[in-house]
């Protein structure tokens, strides 16, 4: 056992300054989350309740096993977009246990634009399904939506990853033995209608639930028929006449109880495919993380201080500690589950990249999941680095990581720039889960470097001639503003570039939940060689 000895003094002035500074970031995160959950739409929530309906998160609370966790995903999707009128992109997604079975729950929020689908709604819906498929989770759809948000139809309907893809995934997952179940709480028109229609089993709530391909107004226009919604697609008609629905529920609680009955009898195996060990809390409190991350992003800190506050007993077995020291690699347990951790302690050199590739192969061979803690400006540049083959050596790490068959998790704890983001399993490399700290930033490069690059490009431009001082100043201001805005974690999470912003102190629990979840999936079999680099 090798417990990390922390060099942090929680009584020091720096710690205090850092904590106070970080507290502002977490306060901001909390207020934004709270607003997304229940803010902005108070009147609509009142009207929703008056209809005998529960809020999306209330439905989740009732559906999942009492006193168990719900790992919500991307609660700040669409944050800051559409005049901030589409909180959480109008959909709640996350993983919870129902009758002890991990399930992906996808719940429309009808208090947000009637639960209609914006670009981010579709993206969040599809991402949830992707996680479900990757981790073999049954999908539970709590349907209360009016289909595509028509003014945004070009960003919702036609493309490969748009609305159609969610139905494609629903069909394919069902075929793979992943139950697709839905309960309908409100009107489901057009696209919305296919969520229950394509489910293996569905339940409709009497009075409120409707399923129709075209609503009364479309029916009037199309075939000049006068009909009310209940006759056209009400719950009683669909359970007793058309057979579109399988169960009729008197109210929402009954529908949710019925869902639980179905799930409880799914014959869906619950297995853990890894050796866990008794859980010990970290030797240092995760709450101290706020005081470790420097208020000034230029002041570095040792990533081991973070690891010491994430892993069981702060026990971290470091791999190759004397080699390639800018990449800290090692094995530990989080909530009793084994994990291989890679954390940045400066720019990645050839040695660090080779060490990273070697370590990834080790974990891969041993079926140990990988956790990447991003705080990386990138791979090293310069003559020495290039002569040392940094391009091919960094490629080895990227290649090993891209082909790893074990679950990968990314947490952006600081910057995540350029090819460093690739090597550390950025979004493009399909980590099973990816979370961001509220002070993180993610971009091709930092605003400083980007503005310098852009100024250099302008200065050397033949096409545009000599640049004036004002022009250069404007370029610098614009680039800084663009990078500042776009590398902001809220900008990223709003666009589903991650699975959510989490507080540093939550990281251990969130990772524990992710590790335990992925451990339910049987590891991929087959040889996995370890090439020494």
């Amino acid at each position, binding site marked *: 056992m090798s417990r990390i000895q922390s060099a942090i003094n929680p009584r020091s002035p720096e710690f205090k300054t850092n904590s106070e500074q970080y507290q502002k970031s977490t306060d901001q995160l909390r207020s934004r989350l709270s607003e997304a959950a229940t803010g902005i739409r108070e009147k609509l929530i009142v009207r929703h309740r008056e209809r*005998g309906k529960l809020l999306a998160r209330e439905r989740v609370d009732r559906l999942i096993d*009492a*006193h168990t*966790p719900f790992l*919500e995903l991307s609660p700040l999707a669409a944050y800051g977009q559409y005049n901030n009128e589409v909180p959480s992109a109008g959909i709640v997604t996350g993983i919870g246990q129902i009758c002890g079975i991990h399930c992906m729950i996808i719940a429309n929020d009808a208090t947000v634009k009637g639960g209609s689908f914006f670009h981010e709604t579709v993206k969040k819906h599809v991402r949830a399904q992707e996680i479900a498929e990757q981790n073999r989770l049954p999908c539970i759809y709590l349907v209360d939506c009016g289909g595509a948000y028509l003014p945004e139809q070009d960003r919702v309907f036609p493309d490969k990853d748009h609305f159609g893809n969610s139905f494609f995934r629903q069909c394919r997952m069902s075929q793979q033995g992943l139950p697709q179940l839905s309960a309908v709480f409100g009107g489901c028109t057009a696209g919305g209608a296919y969520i229950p229609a394509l489910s293996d089993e569905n339940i409709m709530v009497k009075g409120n639930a409707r399923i129709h391909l075209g609503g009364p107004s479309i029916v009037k226009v199309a075939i000049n028929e006068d009909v009310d919604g209940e006759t056209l697609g009400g719950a009683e008609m669909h359970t007793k006449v058309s057979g579109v629905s399988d169960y009729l529920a008197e109210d*929402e*609680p009954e529908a949710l109880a019925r869902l639980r009955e179905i799930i409880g009898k799914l014959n869906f195996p619950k297995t853990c495919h890894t050796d866990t060990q008794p859980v010990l809390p970290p030797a240092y409190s995760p709450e101290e993380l706020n005081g470790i991350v420097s208020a000034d992003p230029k002041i570095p800190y040792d990533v081991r201080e973070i690891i010491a506050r994430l892993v069981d007993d702060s026990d971290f077995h470091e791999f190759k500690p004397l080699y390639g020291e800018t990449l800290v690699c090692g094995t530990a347990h989080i*909530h009793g589950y084994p994990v291989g951790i890679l954390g940045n302690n400066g720019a990645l050199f050839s040695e660090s990249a080779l060490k990273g590739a070697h370590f990834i192969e080790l974990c891969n061979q041993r079926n140990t999941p990988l956790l990447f803690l991003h705080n990386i400006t990138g791979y090293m540049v310069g003559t020495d680095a290039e002569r040392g083959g940094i391009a091919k050596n960094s490629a080895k790490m990227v290649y090993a990581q891209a082909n790893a068959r074990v679950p990968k998790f990314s947490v952006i704890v600081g910057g995540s720039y350029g090819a460093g983001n690739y090597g550390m399993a950025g979004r493009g490399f399909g980590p099973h889960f990816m979370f961001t700290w509220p002070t993180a930033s993610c971009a091709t490069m930092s605003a400083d470097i980007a503005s310098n690059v852009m100024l250099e490009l302008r200065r050397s431009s033949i096409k545009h001639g000599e640049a004036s001082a004002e022009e250069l100043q404007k370029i610098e201001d614009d680039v800084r503003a663009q990078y500042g805005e776009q590398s902001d974690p809220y900008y990223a999470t709003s666009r589903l570039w991650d699975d959510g912003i989490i507080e540093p102190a939550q990281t251990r629990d*969130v990772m524990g939940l992710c590790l335990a979840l992925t451990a339910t999936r049987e590891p991929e079999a087959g040889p996995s060689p370890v090439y020494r680099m």
Partner: protein
Amino acid sequence: MITSLLVANRGEIAARIIRTCRRLNIRAVAVYSEADRHAPHVALADEAYGIGLAESAASYLNADAIIAVALRAKVDAIHPGYGFLSESDALISLCEKQNIIFVGPNREAIRLMGSKLEAKRIAQQAGVPVIPGYHGEDQSETTLALEADKVGYPLMIKASAGGGGKGMRQVDSAAEFAAALQDAKREALASFGDDAMLLEKLVTAPRHIEVQVAADTTGTTVHLYERECSIQRNHQKVIEEAPAAFISDQQREALYASALTLTKAINYDSLGTIEFLLDHNSGDIYFLEMNTRLQVEHPVTEYITGLDLVEWQIRIAAGEALPLSQDQIPCDGWAIEARINAEDPANNYQPQTGLITHYSEPGSLPGNEPGGKTEVRIDSAVQAGSEITPYYDSMIAKVIAGGDDRAQAKSRLITALNQFRITGPRTNLAFVTDILRRPEFIDQALSTGFLAQCFPGGWTPAPVSADAPLLAAIAHTVNREHPTGAALSSPWQTLGSFRLLERAGITAQNRIALEDESGQQHLVTVSRSGDTYHAKAHTFEISPETSHEISATATGLASGSCLIEIEDAELGAHTHTLSLQSEDELLIISNGDKIQRWRLLDEHQLALGSLSDAGSGDHRVTAALPGQVVEVCCKVGDSVTAGDTVAVLDSMKLLHKLNAQTDGTVQDIFCAVGDNVENGALLIELKPNT
């Protein structure tokens, strides 16, 4: 000399006898039925042998099987305990035949006192007063009715071979006589295989006082003072004490004298109890019956005398003389015993069955050995994991508290009862505690009508306060959110209701549906932030009205228990509440004494209607408790009126009538006489009249 002894019994009494054997260095052999394979009395013995199926008739009442074990285990003696074969000729005659010592009186004494008719005749001959009544051989209904008129109403019908309240009925008027007689006969036949009845005048201020006697084979006879057992429910003793309060020295002397007279008259040669009725108004005493065995309530006598009565029984049986003479037997202090039964005192003491999920006896019991001056003694033979079956008596433990005087004994008993924690089947713990707290228990002489007088209409648990369901829900949340157990390693089980948004104030709203002891349902929502729990009482509607809310801090303790503290703004003090949980049951102990019991409901099942459906459907007659069908009083096609008895069930040796809840015709019968049925089993289906 007895060096080995077989205990032909089960439960607490078997355990208690074995303890004395231990002390006397006697090899103790236990017997057990299928149902008792893992019972504590088996583990306590030096050897144990199975004697048959769970039903008593196949095991503890099977004298042949017991004798076979005695021969195999080569024991010197058999101790029959109480109940079962303790007063039966079957076992003692086999003992005689096999030359095994029967720890009890001679066969003739048992025979003489075994029939109530015979016993009274002998008592009368000896000059011991008996209650006016009819004890004749002529058992025809006409004669009995005629004799009943002579004795006068109110009167009691009793099974001649009876005991323990079985086959016993009170009759207030001639009109009720015929029906009551039939019931009593049926019950007597089922319990004793003999339906001979006797009639007795009913005393209006009756107290049940009994005298413990001991006699050896030389004819030396002593008494070990009296016990009062007036507090009875359904003619079964609930609270017993020694000595008796509110009794004059003359009355005491009269009791002792009568008891000794009778003991000598029958050449008695063991420990025995002579039961009397004391009419508190007139001061008259009447002989009731003699129990030729050890009594359930013998520990109270052991406390005041400081003696081990089982040891006395064994010594006398071995032919020794009485260890002490009358003037050497002390009478110091006071002792009160409470019988803890698995029963529902709020529901006509209906026996309860099932698994004991949590069981802890009052702590710090110095000694806890039979016969000593232990402040609090527990005689029990159950533990967590024990199953209460419908085959035997519902008593699971006896709590005996002693002190210098009655007040001290009572207060120690209350304290002990409050520390007793049992979950699983319902028990009468709260009921017996309530009895001891009644002013009538202290202020005046007891009477056998004590319970009817104190709890007219039956005992009900104290109503719950507005805070109570909230505290219960918080306790449940704490216990669930801080699960213990090595098997739990997944954070999906250990992190409680973790929410990503909880730090932003968007916490999980856990809904907890509870049922209190009166059967009322409560719905509470609990949310947590850190160690602070916020609970709100709701109605069951979808847009719930909040009626009451509290915030509390709570700490999970080991093994499903927790401590809750709430700041009381008015009192400026903390209220401490401790909870204990097992499965779907919760015990809440407020401020160290008040205990409440909650049952957790599954709100989802309520939403699906399956819970409410199960009990309803008044056209279905279901078994209200597990037992054996002894009579089906209807056939398919019969038309019945609501209230008609359609079947009779024998559960824990008591008969329970099952009545039609609606007018209709019998559509189907799902049971036959002799069937053993589970609680809730559908027995008869009616087609309601429309």
